[in-house]
């Protein structure tokens, strides 16, 4: 995907840079999700904005607790009490989803919007057969016969590389390995060729070989059906080979976005740099991994101003007093930092 397909509205007007105007298939603006818990109201997602275009893969990365899953769930309207979407806008193909009645949301879920989850051992109902779980997904949206639905389920399994799908259809989840279960979940999620697939760390729980296979399969399937993906992970090496664009989250905010190659090669935000430094890589073998010092702040007491300041090697007084605002950079990039790692002046300065 081209760099013109910027993920953030920039002052120059996104989409006009390359002379190619595209309406994003999914557009999230200023999303705020809060949880009312015993310690008070915590803001898990705090003004998140991004766009995803048709067929594009957006990698959503960040440490544990940064609000990635909540963002993904919000897209499908699956944030449950005590969580609440407080503000913002989520548009799917131009259609506003926030505030939509549950009935209409349900019609979009599974059909236009799909989601797969982290733990393949728990995403399938243990007491229902695979065919039951796939056929119900088809018939929830299309008035087709049991037999036709079954045929489609079988083909879907074949497509994700499950051998002898006819037999496997009558099996129960516990008869599958983790990788196979995740394949079933993926096949199920893509049954209706959705516009957007939110993938919440679907390969994290799998071993590396299986992970690579599944990544390749999903990529192929998504490309085939034109499905855009929001791929949530904390593993930058997964994102490198998969995503077109990347959005880095920290404490409920997106702190940097840009094309994957740009961000990984020349990070702007110190937090992104820290994440990259903590990824094991071949040429650094034997060298101890750089860890970002400190811990992700508890949402109940996020540090004032830049939330990363207690852990940031570049932090200054400004960082502790003034919240850095989203700033556009060349190449349709954005970062929020007072002391960016890139010398170049902000594009919109």
């Amino acid at each position: 995907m081209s760099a013109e397909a910027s993920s953030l509205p920039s002052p120059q007007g996104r989409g006009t840079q390359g002379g190619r105007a595209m309406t994003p298939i999914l557009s999230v603006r200023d999303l705020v999700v809060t949880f009312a818990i015993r310690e008070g109201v915590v803001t898990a997602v705090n003004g998140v904005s991004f766009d995803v275009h048709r067929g594009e893969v957006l990698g959503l990365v960040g440490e544990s607790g940064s609000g990635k899953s909540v963002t993904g769930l919000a897209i499908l309207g699956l944030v449950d009490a005590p969580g609440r979407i407080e503000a913002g806008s989520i548009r799917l193909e131009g259609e506003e989803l926030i505030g939509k009645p549950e009935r209409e949301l349900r019609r979009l879920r599974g059909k236009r919007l799909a989601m797969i989850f982290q733990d393949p051992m728990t995403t399938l109902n243990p007491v229902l057969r695979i065919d039951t779980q796939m056929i119900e997904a088809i018939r929830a949206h299309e008035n087709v016969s049991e037999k036709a639905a079954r045929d489609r389920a079988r083909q879907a399994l074949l497509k994700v590389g499950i051998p002898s799908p006819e037999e496997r259809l009558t099996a129960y989840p516990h008869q599958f390995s983790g990788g196979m279960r995740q394949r079933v979940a993926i096949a199920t999620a893509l049954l209706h060729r959705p516009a957007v697939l939110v993938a919440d760390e679907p390969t994290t729980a799998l071993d590396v070989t299986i992970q690579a296979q599944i990544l390749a399969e999903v990529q192929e399937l998504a490309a085939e059906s034109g499905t855009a993906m929001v791929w949530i992970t904390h593993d930058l090496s997964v994102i490198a080979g998969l995503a077109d664009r990347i959005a880095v989250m920290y404490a409920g905010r997106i702190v940097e976005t840009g094309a994957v190659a740009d961000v990984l090669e020349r990070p702007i935000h110190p937090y992104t740099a820290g994440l990259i430094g903590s990824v094991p890589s071949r040429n650094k073998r034997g060298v101890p991994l750089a860890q970002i010092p400190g811990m992700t702040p508890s949402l109940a007491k996020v540090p004032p101003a830049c939330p990363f300041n207690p852990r940031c090697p570049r932090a200054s007084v400004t960082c502790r007093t003034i919240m850095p605002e989203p700033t556009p950079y060349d190449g349709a990039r954005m970062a929020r930092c007072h002391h960016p790692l890139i010398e170049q002046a902000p594009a919109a300065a």
Partner: protein
Amino acid sequence: MLVYLIRRIGQSLLVVAVMATLVFLAMYAVGDPVDILASPDADEFERRAIAQRLGLDRPLWEQFGIFVWNALHGDLGRSFVYNVPAVDVILQRLPATLELALAGLVFSILIGIPLGVLAGLKPNSLIGRSVMSGSILGFSLPNFWIGLMLILLFAVELRWLPAGGRGPTTSVLGLHFALFTWDGLKHLLLPALTLALYKSALVIRIAQAGTREVMLQDYIRFARAKGLSSRRIVLVHVLKNILIPVVTVLGLELGSMIAFAVVTETVFAYPGMGKLLIDSINRLDRPIIVAYLMLTVVIFVIINLIVDLLYAAIDPRVRLSEAKG
């Protein structure tokens, strides 16, 4: 699966054997039935004759041997009071109690599961809290008191239902059931409800806890992400999962339901095994008590077996792992 079945049956037989020994010893310790059977002014000779006729004059181990031998042939002695085989007396009363226990079971499911699931889906709502408070009441109110209150309300005040007894019976396969007549059902309703109340409370609590737990699972989230209606999610995905604990507990409780029937049957003058037991204890009719206890043990064991098999039928994971073992 076959190995598992054989092993389970073996365990069951062991339980029955141990219980038989305990029952026999307990009976021996309870008292001398000759005191009851002989007339107060009977002399030593008459008493000895009675003891001899009943085999009570032989040494303990010999009595036990005879007891076991006869029991293996389905003979648990003759009732001192009715002078017919004790097993026959019990079996004659068995359908009434089974009918009562099963009706109670059905009621507790019909009341317990919908309320429990509802409370589990909305644990913090008014209705959810009311159901849970109500279930505590169901636990703490004594069985006989509930029975009396129901009689007062529906039989004495409203006169809708009979206060006690068992309605007319029809014979099915040689056993007498009241289930198949309207009048019989009317007689069954109040005692079954009384019996079911405690179990309903239990089912409510299990179903509520189960529903709450299941609703948090990833597979429910995934089911919602597929766009399933909440109806389908609750009726298929949730229900099928909570059925596992409910069936387990209810199966085990069916046995205690038969035992609890003692109180309920007494309150409603319902001619089942429970009432027979109380009468027989009062009359020290030892063979009947022994037969009742043995039969109850056998019923318990059979129910447990059935529950295990049902469990395997509902939960595919059990099916596989047990088949291996």
